[in-house]
């Protein structure tokens, strides 16, 4: 092997930079706090990443199809509040499917606006972020929602129990990740999602109904959000109206961190899961070294910028490329 040139190093950094940064983080955190890699801490990180992770799975489909979904945080608040409220009114067995149906109606509305009316997904979902928040507050009357009889319901199973020592939220995240990974990588639908995001015009010229594919991606994303809402509600048995606030950015950060391009057409479920875990470990590490919780908001932004920069750098083949 010849010695690495500066160009080679630049290319390697651009392609695997996130991984290097992650390893550096992990080493630094482990040195700063020995508990960082302890099994219970690792399990804790995965568990606390599960809700965000489930949402990121759905958003991965949306992003690969070439669109954005900034409404998922707000939509997660909605599904959490709705399922908690309905729990006491019609019982958990009916509340859960009703909440899924309502949440997926919101997803279908977004899918209709973006897919069939061809409105810009950034505007539509940013607007929905606000509109769904309003809907949630209207539903709850602005009050926190609590399950009255927390001891007498089986509803906590999705957030609190374990099977063979593995917490249920991790199982749900893992199970859904496997199913969606196969759906994306191995089914005709998944292939069409890549085609629509990779080159929508060419997809049309291949007889693929673009609008329907985009529509289905948003419905799928809202299904994931409903699942996340169920996990959140089940874990806490009560919730504020703002429980999902700001999650849309963390979700997007995880998806981009995993390497899905915002231009559409690339990304995988496996990479998104890696992105979710990286984000989780970094946020956990910041807490363990004694930084305030609020620092993570800044760090999330830094991570998004870093990931987007590297994504672009790989495409351009250089890290430094000012607008010429």
């Amino acid at each position, binding site marked *: 092997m010849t010695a690495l040139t500066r160009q080679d190093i630049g290319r390697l950094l651009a392609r695997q930079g996130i991984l290097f940064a992650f390893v550096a983080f992990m080493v630094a955190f482990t040195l700063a706090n020995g508990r960082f890699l302890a099994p219970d801490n690792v399990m804790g990180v995965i568990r606390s990443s599960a809700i965000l992770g489930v949402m990121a799975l759905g958003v991965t489909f949306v992003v690969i199809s070439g669109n954005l979904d900034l409404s998922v945080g707000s939509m997660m608040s909605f599904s959490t509040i709705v399922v908690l409220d309905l729990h006491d009114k019609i019982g958990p067995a009916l509340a859960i499917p009703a909440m899924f149906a309502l949440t997926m109606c919101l997803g279908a509305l977004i899918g209709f606006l973006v897919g069939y009316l061809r409105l810009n997904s950034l505007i539509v979902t940013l607007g929905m972020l606000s509109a769904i928040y309003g809907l949630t507050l209207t539903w709850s009357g602005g009050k926190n929602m609590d399950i009255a009889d927390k001891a007498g319901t089986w509803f906590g199973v999705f957030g609190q129990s374990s099977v063979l020592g593995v917490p249920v939220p991790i199982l749900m995240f893992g199970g859904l990740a496997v199913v969606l990974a*196969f759906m994306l990588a*191995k*089914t*005709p639908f998944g*292939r*069409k999602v*890549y*085609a629509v995001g*990779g*080159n929508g*015009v*060419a*997809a*049309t*010229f*291949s*007889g*693929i*109904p673009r609008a329907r594919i985009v529509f289905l991606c948003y419905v799928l994303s809202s299904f994931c959000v409903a699942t996340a809402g169920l996990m959140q509600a089940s874990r806490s048995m009560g919730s504020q109206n703002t429980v999902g606030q700001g999650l849309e950015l963390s979700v997007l950060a995880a998806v981009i961190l995993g390497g899905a391009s915002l231009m559409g*057409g*690339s990304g995988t479920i496996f990479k998104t899961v890696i992105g979710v875990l990286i984000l989780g470990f970094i946020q956990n590490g910041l807490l363990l070294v004694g930084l305030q919780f609020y620092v993570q908001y800044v760090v999330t932004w830094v991570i998004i910028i870093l990931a987007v920069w590297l994504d672009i750098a790989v495409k351009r083949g250089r890290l430094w490329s000012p607008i*010429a």
Partner: protein
Amino acid sequence: MTAMQPALRLEGIVKTFPGVRALDGVSFDVMPGEVHALMGENGAGKSTLMKVLGGIHQPDAGRIIVNEVPVQMATPLEAKAKGIVFIHQELSLAEELSVAENIYLGELPCKSFGRVDWALLYERTNDILKRLNVGFNAKTLVGDLSIANQQMVEIARALTHDAKAVIFDEPTASLTDAEKVVLFDVIDDLKAAGVGIIYISHRMEEIFKITDRISVLRDGSYRGTLTTCDTDQDAVTHLMIGRALDLSRSAAQHELGDVAIEVRGLCCGKLFQDVHFEVRRGEVLGFYGLVGAGRTEIAETLFGLRSPSAGEILLNGQPVSIASPADAIAMGISLVPEDRKGQGLILGMNCRDNMTLPQISDLTAGPFVAEGSEIAIFDQYRDKLDIRTPGWKQQVGNLSGGNQQKIVIGKWLSMRPDILIVDEPTRGIDVGSKSEIHNLIRDLAAQGYAVIVISSEMPEVLHVSDRIVAMYSGRVMRTFAANEVTEDNLIQAISGIGGDRVA
């Protein structure tokens, strides 16, 4: 040493990418006032060489010499400053700004307090436009101009600088014949002004009409320079592909079958009106006309991408309504679209996935894609069409233009259509692949496909078609049988002169 110094000289340019030696010691020079053609098949290294000249890539070895001064260019801006100007095939103009603003973008003349000196700007611009003899003025919005006129704006921009060398990259790709004449006049003016010109094109007629010398690249290495007036197309082709090329006319040798598709009085708003034609199995029907004559729009209507405002389409004698590409595909119609990269392929996807995309819903085992069947289809058409790729995992964006086009053709042949529509089958691909694709089209007809070929290149239409529909301004001017068509009456028909209308 001669008395005159070259405007631009390349000495032993080498550029290596991981695993590929893209340029292997390329040397040639361009004299002031010379039009120097650069030719080579796709993948021969022309684009890489242009990127080196344009400051986008840095050469690993070799020198670029402008007016006897060796130069180094780290960015496109530096290349421009050194007097090397590009006229790209894809235009880079701001459509919402005026012609004058585009030409002087970044260097608008200013008065005090940073105010733009509009009077001076328009005066300077109109001076340049006068030299180019164009029909628009400094204040026209670029977005309102035709592609040809936008190209003139790019050329005008080149003239504002003290250009030593101007490089034209496939400048006539989207020009009409009349617009080409204007372009060639401008090139003559540049010549007279002592500018060295590099002219890249696949079109032999143009090369022989306007260039002084021809340099040829093959597989990244320099194959020689010929003096245009002392050579002929065969010699150039031989240098490019290492063998001679057969472009003689080949009419159908086989029996024609039933009428596969018939179109009666088809209209689509202002795009085309009252179009009649029929195609039999085993027949190639050529569509010839100027850009904008409505040919592509007819193809898109047959493929369900546009809805006709009147008229009938009959498949095997039955009237049908085609509402979407999915409908068209189900009825056995395939369209190889005109814009390979924009409409035909998903460049970031691999070869196999691109090829099987239209039938992906049918290639399943349970809920999953049957990847084995996919690979079998890919292998079959790779062999049949002689697609040169390391394997199905290769991204199509990395293939040469000819091989990309074969992927698109394979994609649609694997649908086993009754009717194959091919729009601009060889646009922007090299001479060698061109003749392969022509032969392929003839073979398909012989196998019983009904084929419609749309082309802007007359030799191509004449070569592959059994009959030719000449279109002008959205109307069918005349349908020629093979034995009655000549270059002259075809040109007359598509220019709207003469040509009795025969439906």
